[in-house]
């Protein structure tokens, strides 16, 4: 099973012919203010850590996109002026094929926080199957949420100074989470050998190298999996899979 956790820019579905179908909405609870009851006391605005509520003069302003849905304002309100309603932040879609299910999420345009969608997506992981999570980029909360609780992390990098720098940051995250991990070098042959030397020095297993082959780039640009367009690479990927199975 494949779960694409890059809810700000999911791409895995591009490699499937099958269309994605909407499966469900993802919402977080957001406050609704009863202005008849509200006395503009300002306690909610003062409490909100995300600055989603402001009182200006005779008006209460609520910035829905900044709200994390913690529910604190509702608990706190002395006038019972706050209830909660669903604020839809994105959707989950389902697709793929019979022997390879795909789920992905889409964060609505203009919404800042995708983590609740990633959390819901991960619920679909079928424990009886191998589930691959395609993680968002970076090392902030969305990437961490995707990596959390995995049995193994594959860190994909390029043999360049940018690749090495970002790899080192991601290694920090994997180590902090206590997740076993290994490195795959993509576009091997460009750049320099600093990534390899780093992995050797840090005793990080180098699981596979994928050559810098323009044919791969061309297949990728059309949304075709490498192993379908260039079957000679099958051995690289099945070898990678076997290696990880041994390690987990």
């Amino acid at each position, binding site marked *: 099973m494949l779960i694409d956790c890059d809810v700000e*820019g999911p*791409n895995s579905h591009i490699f499937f012919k099958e269309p994605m179908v909407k499966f469900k909405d993802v919402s977080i609870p957001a406050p609704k203010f009863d202005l008849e009851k509200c006395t503009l006391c300002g306690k909610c605005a003062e409490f909100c850590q995300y600055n989603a509520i402001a009182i200006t003069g005779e008006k209460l302003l609520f910035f829905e996109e900044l709200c*994390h849905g*913690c529910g604190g304002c509702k608990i706190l309100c002395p006038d019972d002026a706050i209830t909660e309603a669903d604020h839809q932040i994105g959707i989950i879609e389902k697709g793929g094929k019979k022997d390879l299910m795909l789920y992905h999420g889409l964060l609505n345009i203009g919404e800042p926080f995708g983590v609740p969608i990633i959390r819901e997506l991960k619920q679909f992981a079928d424990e009886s199957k191998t589930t691959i999570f395609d993680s968002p980029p970076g090392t*902030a909360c969305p*990437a*961490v949420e995707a990596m959390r609780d995995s049995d193994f992390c594959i860190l994909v990098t390029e043999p360049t*100074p*940018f690749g090495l*720098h970002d790899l080192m940051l991601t290694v920090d995250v994997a180590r902090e989470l206590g997740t076993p991990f290994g490195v795959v070098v993509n576009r091997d042959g460009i750049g320099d050998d600093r990534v390899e030397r780093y992995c050797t020095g840090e005793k990080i297993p180098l699981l596979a190298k994928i050559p810098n082959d323009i044919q791969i780039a061309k297949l990728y640009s059309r949304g075709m999996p490498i192993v379908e367009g260039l079957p000679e690479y099958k051995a690289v990927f099945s070898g990678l899979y076997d290696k990880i199975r041994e390690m987990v």
Partner: protein
Amino acid sequence: MVKELTVISGKGGCGKTTIAASFVALAKDPVIADADVDAADMHILLHPQVRKKEKFSGLDVAKKDDDKCIDCGKCYDNCRYGAFDSDNTLHPEKCEGCAVCAMVCPVEAIQMVERNAGEAYISDTRFGPLVHAKLHAGEEASGKLVALVRQRAKEVAEETGKELILIDGPPGTGCTVIASLTGVDLVLVVFEPTLSGIHDAKRIIEVARHFKIQVLACINKYDINEENTEQIMQFCKEENIEVVGKIPYDDTATDAMVAEKTVIEFSDGSMAKAIQDIWQKIGKAWT
């Protein structure tokens, strides 16, 4: 008036930082802001000398005093982020800093404390001041750190009378992207002619339009799929977005990176020329 330009792509690996760094070399007297705070790479090419450093604390984090705790379970019942187990054990790494637990705790066993979420820097480079930051692994509130970087960049520009802030944006469409786009004067969207590059660039254009920001586009590695490049041109035409240039696929980008230089300094080949051309067109679009 200080003007701000953000370079962005949605998807990572499209050449956004390579292009932004080249603009830095071409611009007259810019302030540079690296808004990709959880994987900042600009400094690798610019070798900054840090002049000023400040701590970034982001949102507070819950801290529990187990001696005071009476195991009433209110923190567990009210936390919506799974930061407490049913036995009331706190997992600070899941805390989103909302402070609800501290509010509902009847015995004040929970306090919200400052967290060390990262650092922001003002540095000198051979092209001008660079404002950059480092978010610690797995931290929240990266959008706030981007806002801090932009705030400092603006202050530096105002203090030194500079008129342009060049912002290297982060990937995605979430909080860091929103924080690096809101209120800027112009966004350059870098397309890569791959289906995923197109998919993500279209999403980022929607975000920019949502915040009513003027969008220009360019296509990097345009020759890896000319059919897709044609599609992008068509799309931009329909959407009324000016395509200010096409950059060929070129190993120069990687070679310059390995030499830790911008493409403009490293070579005067076709890639450098294409970027120069784009930079001129951006200047025209601006006036």
